């Protein structure tokens, strides 16, 4: 594709630099190869890309025929299938091409300009299209509008880019000055254009060097003209650019001709003719005419005539102009000189008048002046003073008009530099303003996008939070349910631990009740016997025993009753009713329950029980079943710890659990101490956490201490502290406000 673009660049450069030349010879050959490239593309996308390149880099042909209109249609048709590019500017280009073909140049110009505006929005490199516009302005001969348009576009591209698009703008502006004969400004702008092209399009850069040579030639500075054309020619040869080389020889031939170095001019003319393409173009006509002119200057009119006749024929058929980018093609003037040399005054006059007329029609001021003056001299020489005077007048009229037009351009270099500097400053300022605008826009966009992103995030967060809340709500309900179940499980688990102990505890009082009841029955019989036998004292003694026994029966009955009540209280959900409670009794009751419970489960279990109850302990206002649950838990843990240690130490260890009560700082203090395994330092912090347990899976719920903490701290405003040394002892210290 790189190669294609090079070819294309080359093609359009030629077209651009020689607006009045027909490019059929070269362009057709390259287009054919591109058509082959296009034919090889298999996918719609690849085909579209090649066609787009063709369209983008092929300016409209300057010979007033459409350049490959099929490509535009193909591009639009392919794009219709895959919608890869914005078709609007290409539709406008197609439209512009069609108007061009119908010679409706105004409409064509408008369509192309609209296409330019659309492409500018895409920031696209479109210098071939801009070159087309330059050619259209030439056709319309609207040099003022041309200057205005290209100055506006130049400023736009200098500020906004792309930089490449500034080159055809400079070229367009230069052309205006050239038409006006303001060579200084023309050359300035050509040079600026050349500088831009030099950086990215070497072929076009070389072509502008030739134009510079031609312009200096017309201005009369042949050294400068030679310098630029001479600089360009080796570059064309290096680029292997046959058309460029040919153009170079043509330019050099004209320069040397004007400089009066006819031998040199002839040499270049011959080299030019040798390198011509087969097709007849303006350049062919130009070089033939130049060569004819050289023969005439060398007083060889017979050699000039066939060349002039050929040139005349081609011009008549193709409508070539006298003034073009390849210089002046002065066929009629050469005929004039030919007829003068042959002494044919009549034909000479006719030829000179034709030349003058054409130059007037084409508004080529320098030739108009040249021919008017020549006519003045001609008629003066042939004794026609009136006509002579008229043409001299015409000469001065055109001259004055030109001078008047040039007044505006008669500016000292210093001022031109100043203006350039001012323009550069203006552009810099515009660039700065644009940068500020871009920054502001970027900032606003960033702010806008940022706000949108933040808004989106907040929305997402809100949705997330809302959903989480919903989930949490459900989870909370589920958790509460589970918590209730767990608490119940914990209660039931501890109840299970108690069952055997309770059975034992109830069994004993029941035994006493039964035994004492049986004894009393026996004693009553005995008493009856004694009364019958008249042993009254013995009967009274027996009655006393019966009474004592009944007392025992009541005591043990109450004992059993208390145990059953305690059991029910333990399993029942707490009603949180605080009541004055004997803590000593409560502790003793639960200690026994815990002990017997464990004994029931593990026959090998045993531990010494020590109780140091403070007899003077006041009743404490608490929820008995809750505190009972706490104590039961602590006792069970204490027994568990001693049991674990026993497994390690066996015979040399005497497990002991000591329960003490007392008063401290106006609070009930209960201490539960065991000489078991102790609590490792690293888990001390965790033991109050729910579900934390050191027991094997399935043996502990991990809720015992956590529930105890809640009951004591939250339920009773009390506290629970731990003192432990690993491997030696653990002491839980409870404080409950009275």
């Amino acid at each position: 594709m790189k190669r294609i673009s090079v070819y294309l660049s080359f093609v359009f450069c030629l077209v651009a630099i020689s607006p009045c030349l027909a490019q059929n010879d070269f362009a057709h050959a390259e287009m054919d190869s591109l058509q082959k490239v296009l034919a090889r593309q298999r996918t719609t996308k690849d085909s579209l890309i090649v066609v787009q390149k063709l369209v983008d880099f092929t300016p409209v042909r300057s010979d007033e025929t459409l350049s490959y209109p099929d490509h535009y249609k193909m591009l639009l048709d392919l794009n219709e299938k895959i919608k890869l590019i914005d078709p609007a500017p290409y539709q406008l280009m197609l439209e512009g091409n069609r108007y061009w073909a119908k010679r409706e140049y105004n409409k064509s110009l408008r369509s192309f300009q609209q296409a330019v505006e659309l492409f500018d929005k895409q920031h696209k490199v479109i210098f071939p299209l801009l070159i087309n516009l330059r050619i259209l302005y030439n056709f319309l001969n609207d040099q003022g509008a041309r200057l205005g348009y290209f100055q506006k576009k130049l400023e736009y591209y200098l500020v906004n880019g792309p930089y490449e698009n500034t080159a055809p703008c400079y070229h367009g502006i230069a052309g205006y000055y050239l038409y006006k004969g303001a060579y200084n400004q023309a050359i300035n702008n050509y040079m600026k254009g050349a500088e831009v092209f030099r950086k990215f399009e070497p072929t076009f850069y070389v072509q502008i060097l030739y134009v510079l040579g031609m312009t200096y030639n017309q201005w009369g500075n042949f050294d400068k003209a030679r310098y630029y054309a001479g600089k360009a020619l080796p570059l064309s040869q290096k680029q292997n650019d046959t058309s460029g080389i040919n153009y170079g020889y043509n330019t050099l031939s004209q320069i040397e001709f004007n400089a009066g170095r006819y031998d040199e001019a002839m040499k270049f003319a011959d080299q030019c003719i040798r390198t011509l393409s087969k097709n007849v173009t303006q350049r062919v006509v130009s070089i033939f005419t130049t060569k004819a002119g050289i023969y005439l200057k060398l007083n060889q009119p017979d050699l000039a005539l066939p060349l002039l006749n050929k040139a005349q024929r081609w011009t008549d058929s193709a409508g070539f102009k006298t003034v073009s980018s390849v210089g002046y093609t002065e066929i009629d003037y050469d005929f004039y000189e030919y007829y003068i040399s042959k002494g044919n005054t009549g034909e000479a006059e006719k030829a000179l008048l034709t030349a003058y007329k054409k130059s007037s029609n084409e508004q080529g001021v320098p030739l108009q002046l040249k021919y008017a003056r020549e006519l003045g001299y001609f008629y003066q020489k042939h004794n026609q003073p009136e006509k002579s005077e008229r043409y001299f007048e015409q000469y001065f009229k055109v001259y004055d008009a030109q001078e008047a037009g040039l007044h505006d351009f008669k500016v000292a270099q210093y001022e031109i530099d100043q203006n350039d500097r001012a323009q550069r400053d203006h552009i810099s300022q515009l660039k700065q303003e644009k940068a500020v605008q871009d920054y502001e826009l970027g900032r606003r966009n960033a702010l806008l996008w940022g706000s949108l992103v933040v808004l989106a995030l907040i929305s997402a967060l809100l949705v997330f939070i809302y959903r989480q809340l919903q989930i949490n709500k459900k989870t909370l309900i589920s958790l509460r349910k589970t918590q209730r179940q767990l608490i119940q499980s914990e209660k039931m688990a501890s109840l299970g631990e108690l069952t055997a102990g309770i059975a034992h505890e109830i069994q004993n009082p029941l035994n006493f009740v039964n035994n004492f009841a049986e004894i009393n029955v026996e004693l009553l019989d005995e008493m009856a016997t004694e009364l019958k036998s008249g042993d009254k004292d013995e009967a009274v003694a027996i009655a006393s025993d019966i009474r004592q026994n009944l007392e025992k029966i009541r005591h043990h009955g109450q004992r059993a009753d208390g145990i059953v009540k305690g059991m029910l209280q333990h399993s029942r959900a707490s009603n949180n009713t605080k009541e004055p409670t004997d803590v000593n009794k409560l502790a003793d009751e639960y200690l026994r329950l815990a002990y017997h419970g464990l004994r029931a489960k593990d026959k090998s279990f045993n531990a010494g029980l020590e109780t140091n109850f403070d007899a003077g302990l006041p009743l404490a206002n608490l929820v008995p079943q809750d505190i009972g649950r706490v104590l039961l838990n602590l006792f069970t843990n204490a027994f568990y710890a001693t049991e674990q240690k026993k497994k390690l130490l066996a015979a040399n260890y005497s497990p002991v659990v000591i329960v003490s009560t007392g008063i401290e700082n106006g609070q009930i203090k209960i201490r539960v101490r065991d000489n078991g395994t102790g609590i490792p330092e690293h888990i001390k912090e965790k033991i109050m956490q729910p579900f934390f347990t050191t027991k094997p899976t399935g043996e502990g719920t991990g809720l015992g201490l956590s529930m105890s903490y809640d009951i004591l701290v939250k339920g009773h405003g009390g506290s629970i502290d731990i003192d432990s040394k690993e491997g030696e002892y653990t002491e839980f210290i409870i404080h409950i406000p009275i």
Partner: protein
Amino acid sequence: MKILVVDDEADIQPLFIQRFRQEIKHGDFDFSFALSGEEALSYLEKNHSEVVLILSDINMPGMTGIELLSRIRHQYEKPPPVVMMITAYNDDENRNQAIQNGANEFLTKPLDFALLKEKLKTFIHKD
């Protein structure tokens, strides 16, 4: 004819005295009571020669009946026979341990005093 009853239940004392009031009255049996294994050992230190039978509970806080049995067997050359009282929930494990440590007989709680009387009489007769 001293019989030592070891049980952590204090009311076992009036119960035995009531149950065996006739035998006590007639001087057939003489009961002493200890509320723990430790108390029982302490009593035996002073009175072991008088004690002809020890009746002990197994499940007691501190020293258990089994430990007490073991200590007696190790401490005295001619220890008195020991009858173990086993509660309902004390199963074969306790029974096996007691046998291994030299228990002479077993009784299950709640005590059948008629049976107990027979056993005691048998032991005393043997003695």
